């Protein structure tokens, strides 16, 4: 009897932004891990979800801002599970505010330190994550997913958080290869804890990166100043698809690569505020121009302008 001799062929997980976004069906639960307000948001992916007019999303978000606000403002969201949606120095997230105030979006409230533990619980096979820090707060009153129980160890009350079960986790990172290996850079006081915890709770991870580098050569493309540090990674085993999206966090920043585009965010926030106050025109223009009017992410980057983008690259980014 003969034996088939087959050499292992690593799977090419590279997809277009549009193909990747099509994975997210109406009514899905997705995890968008941006960092408070305007850092490290997978914005290119969020824009693409808007373009594809995805509806009724449930978004699990760590301290969030731009990405959730955009999706709320475009009518893609039914529910947000989060500790925060805000735009930091640019004020409240007006689209999120408006959607919640009109009852269009419901919120499940979690404190900041209990968002990633919901991923931890899933990744560790815990049936729930028991805590005591919520006793007495109205989070227990209004978040109906959190249940009260009595500890079998000490007989005292506790609150049980539900493990996070996202259909898809979406993360933006600096570099990756077509097999789905991904590397993050580090910034002052920053490590991508939320991103890593979230990607560990599923294999349905959609990773957008600034640049796809040749397979097995990822370490060559790490900028010199980061090479002396341990860098957080996502192993290929955990990546479902990977997408090349340069400036894929714009207008938010990407640690070690791109600064936030504060002028753009100012314009964005102003449009949201006007709409909240009853004047929807500038918000609709924003969507028409930067989202629906752009067939692809490249069109968007062209609109933003190469000159503007070049100024946003920080030291690590120069080398990408």
């Amino acid at each position, binding site marked *: 009897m003969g034996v088939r001799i087959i050499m292992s062929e690593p799977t090419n997980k590279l997809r277009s932004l549009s193909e990747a976004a099509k994975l997210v069906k109406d009514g899905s639960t997705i995890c968008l891990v941006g960092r*408070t307000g305007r850092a490290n948001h997978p914005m290119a992916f969020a824009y693409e979800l808007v373009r594809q007019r995805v509806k009724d999303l449930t978004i699990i978000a760590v*301290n969030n801002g731009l990405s959730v606000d955009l999706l709320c403002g475009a009518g893609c969201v039914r529910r947000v599970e*989060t*500790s*925060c*949606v*805000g735009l*930091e*120095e640019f004020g*409240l*997230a007006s689209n*999120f*505010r408006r959607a*919640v*105030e009109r*009852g269009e979006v419901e*919120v499940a*409230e*979690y*404190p*900041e*330190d*209990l968002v990633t533990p919901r991923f931890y619980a899933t990744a560790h096979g815990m049936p729930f994550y028991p805590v*005591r*820090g*919520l*006793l*007495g*707060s*109205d*989070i227990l009153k*209004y978040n109906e997913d959190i249940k009260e129980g009595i500890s079998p160890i000490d007989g*005292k*009350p506790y609150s049980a958080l539900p493990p996070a079960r996202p259909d898809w986790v979406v993360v933006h990172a600096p570099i990756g290869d077509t097999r789905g290996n991904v590397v993050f850079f580090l910034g*002052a*006081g920053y490590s991508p804890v939320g991103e890593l915890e979230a990607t560990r709770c599923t294999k349905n991870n959609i990773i957008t990166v600034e640049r796809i580098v040749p397979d097995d050569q990822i370490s060559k493309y790490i900028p010199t100043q980061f090479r002396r540090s341990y860098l957080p990674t996502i192993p290929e085993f955990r990546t479902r698809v990977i997408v090349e999206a340069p400036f894929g966090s714009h207008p938010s920043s990407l640690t070690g690569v791109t600064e936030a585009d504060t002028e753009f965010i100012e314009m964005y926030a102003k449009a949201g505020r006007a709409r909240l106050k009853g004047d929807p025109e500038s918000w609709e223009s924003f969507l028409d121009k930067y989202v629906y009017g752009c067939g692809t992410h490249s069109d968007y980057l062209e609109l933003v302008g190469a000159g503007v983008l070049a100024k946003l690259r920080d030291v690590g980014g120069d080398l990408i």
Partner: protein
Amino acid sequence: MSDLQPTKWEIMAAIISHEIKDGEVMFLGMSTGGITMLLHTYVPGVGLALARRTHAPNCAITSTDSPDMERILGDDMKVISGANIYLGEIDIGLSSCAQVDKYGNQNIVCIGDYHKPSVRLVGPILQPTHLAYFKREIIAVDHEARNFVDKVDFISGVGHQDLGPKSRESIGLPGTGPCMIMTDLCVFDFPLGTRTATLKWIYPGVTVDEVRENTGFVHDYMPERVPEAPLPTQEEIRLIREELDPDAALLPRS
């Protein structure tokens, strides 16, 4: 040599300094720039540095949002890593809110009915955890009447509540809750007997009427005359102006 007159910010920094005991660890919440940065980061930061230079050389802070401040204060701003919130290793926290009630309950989630709010705010961020685990909390709020309400619309930070016979401890919270509300007009504390906000000090030039007009809740204790806040000593003012913040990069001089 004439006496140095402290600014409002210096008075607040000194009050925070005096609140910190030697060896204690402080935790600051997130700031978003502007006046918030001043009230929630620079004032307590200078307060901590002042404490380290005077009576509490071993106090420390877990982190700040401000690398600039850490650079300016240098060794006077001891930043430590590894303090554990849940083990009660944070002694003093500092946070803000959109509403505070006389029990020190705080709200940063929404104004109005939760399901149809008139204003949706950012969300609870770390506030529930501050108020559950930190040994004590300083609530720092701009003194506007709408911020001081009879009952907050959403308890995102648990104060002394209206617990009746129940204490915070009885509901399972290890921290002792808010120890003061510090505003730009005055300081309230929560005396052990009532555990309700009681006007403790007003800053020089502020009147009780002014506080009353700008405070939306009824105080159990609101006398005609309230002690003026203890002022920083000449040496403390000198330390702030000459050694800690010589360029007035943190605390404005007026």
